[in-house]
């Protein structure tokens, strides 16, 4: 009887095994390994972290990664805000078409997206050629193979994601509120400044943290465009483990931990700044 009563726990086993073996242990192992000296000896050291934050190459990677993640998230959010607001005001066919297109292009990322930009703005891209033929300097000399080019690509995949995340939030804005503001003599602008945006703040912050994490961890587009010739955290991380240069697993683990800390920070800041349900304090 006793064994029978607990036998249902077996159903939990596959799930727990998966999580422990391929989620918890790999992460814990990476964290622990990041404090080991390079070369595989035992011991405790902070050298790996010191090297990340003092080495020029890795400082640059951190700066570039944060810059590109924050900028692409902010730009993505601004466009998404305009788009979601428009969806909120628009009824009918155009809205349906817009929603389908957002869903459709949210699948367009990674290597295919990078290549689409290469044929548009790359060395012999269509727009580059047109720019050169007609003397449009901006197109002819577009710096696609740089952090700025990457930013353009990142913004592209942030927009559909951000818009899809923000649209449901706009549903919480009631028409009565707008009418109330109008009755009290407020303009549309006043409504958004004083009511709309404050109501949406938790959703905006939540979306920001999703976008930030998404951009920080993105690897495929950058790799397809520039291989290892760009200083970004995901690129620097992966080259410590795979590829042609000498592998440095302990040092690489420290890079992975730095990235995880950024991810967790983004989530925590969002949680902290979002007022809890049932009033503040």
């Amino acid at each position, binding site marked *: 009887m006793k064994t029978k009563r607990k036998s249902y726990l077996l159903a939990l086993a596959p799930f727990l095994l998966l999580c422990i073996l391929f989620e918890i242990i790999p992460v814990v192992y990476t964290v622990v390994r990041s404090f080991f000296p390079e070369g595989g000896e035992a011991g405790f050291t902070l050298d790996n972290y010191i090297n990340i934050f003092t080495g020029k190459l890795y400082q640059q990677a951190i700066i570039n990664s944060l810059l590109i993640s924050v900028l692409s998230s902010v730009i993505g959010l601004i466009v998404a805000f305009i788009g979601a607001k*428009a969806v909120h005001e628009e009824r009918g066919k155009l809205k349906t078409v817009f929603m389908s297109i957002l869903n459709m292009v949210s699948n367009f990322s990674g290597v295919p997206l990078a290549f689409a930009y290469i044929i548009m703005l790359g060395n012999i891209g269509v727009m580059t050629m047109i720019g050169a033929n007609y003397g449009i300097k901006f197109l002819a000399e577009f710096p696609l193979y740089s952090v700025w080019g990457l930013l353009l690509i990142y913004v*592209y995949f942030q*927009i559909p994601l951000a818009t899809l995340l923000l649209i449901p939030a706009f549903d919480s804005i009631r028409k009565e509120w707008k009418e109330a503001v109008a009755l009290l003599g407020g303009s549309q602008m006043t409504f958004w400044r004083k009511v709309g945006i404050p109501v949406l703040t938790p959703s905006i912050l939540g979306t920001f943290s999703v976008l930030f994490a998404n951009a920080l961890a993105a690897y495929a587009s950058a790799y397809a465009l520039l291989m290892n010739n760009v200083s970004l955290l995901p690129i620097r991380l992966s080259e410590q*483990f795979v590829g042609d240069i000498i592998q440095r697993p302990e040092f690489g683990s420290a890079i992975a931990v730095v990235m995880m800390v950024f991810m967790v920070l983004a989530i925590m800041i969002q949680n902290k700044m979002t007022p809890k349900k049932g009033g503040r304090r």
Partner: protein
Amino acid sequence: MRTEKKKSHVGAKIAIIVIIAYLLLPLIMTFIYSLFQEWIDIAPTGFTLAAYTELFTDPLFWKAVGRTVVISIIPIILCTVFVLLAMYVVVVYHPEWDKMIQILCTIPYAIQGVILPICVLSLYSSAPEPFGDRMFMLVATYMVVILPYVYQGIRNNLNGVGAPRLIEAAQMLGASKFYAFFRVVIPNIMGGVTISVMLAMAIVFGDFVIINTLAGGQFMTAQMYLYDIMKKSGQRTCAVIVVLFVVTLIISACAFFLQSKGKDRKDR
């Protein structure tokens, strides 16, 4: 008042159209590029379907697509089964454990992208079989990556049908808890679960970073095929992108179709 409303309406329309144009531009350019021999001025020249015929007659391409289908379906089925089994314990015996399951299913967000495959690789690359096997690592890593989506889909649907009450009702009619969960609850949520599974499928289908990290060039999926051909021919690359994109669209269109069908049924 009225004119203001009208104006904002036009503004909304323009905003939506501009964003649509921006989002469709790279896709349309890729499509046109795949259909012409040369495009160095405003209009492309030399219409041809050669890129597509070459692609469809390349056995390597079909093999790559086959591998992608296999490597997407196995983790998705396993992951769904694992989560369903775990939710059986949670719903029927220990509702208070849901918090723990939820945390376990949220962690993959914080280790997304390149982090998880690197952690897995560094831990198991020299481990004994079966852990050291790249395919084993690949399947397990995909399962962890799609965990949040599969869990969310299953939990939402369990809540949607009111699983605890369904089980109670079935028990009153003499069914065991096991029977009630697997023969009454699961058939009721299967439609909804299929939708989240298809979204997960689109994620695995478009993956490059995990396959590139864990398998390198050894296991050529469609994405790896694309990456390989990128260095050879721009036109063919565009054709591959178009074909893969259409396949992804079909997968998500199926999910949408099921979703709207499910809604209709509930509305009735």
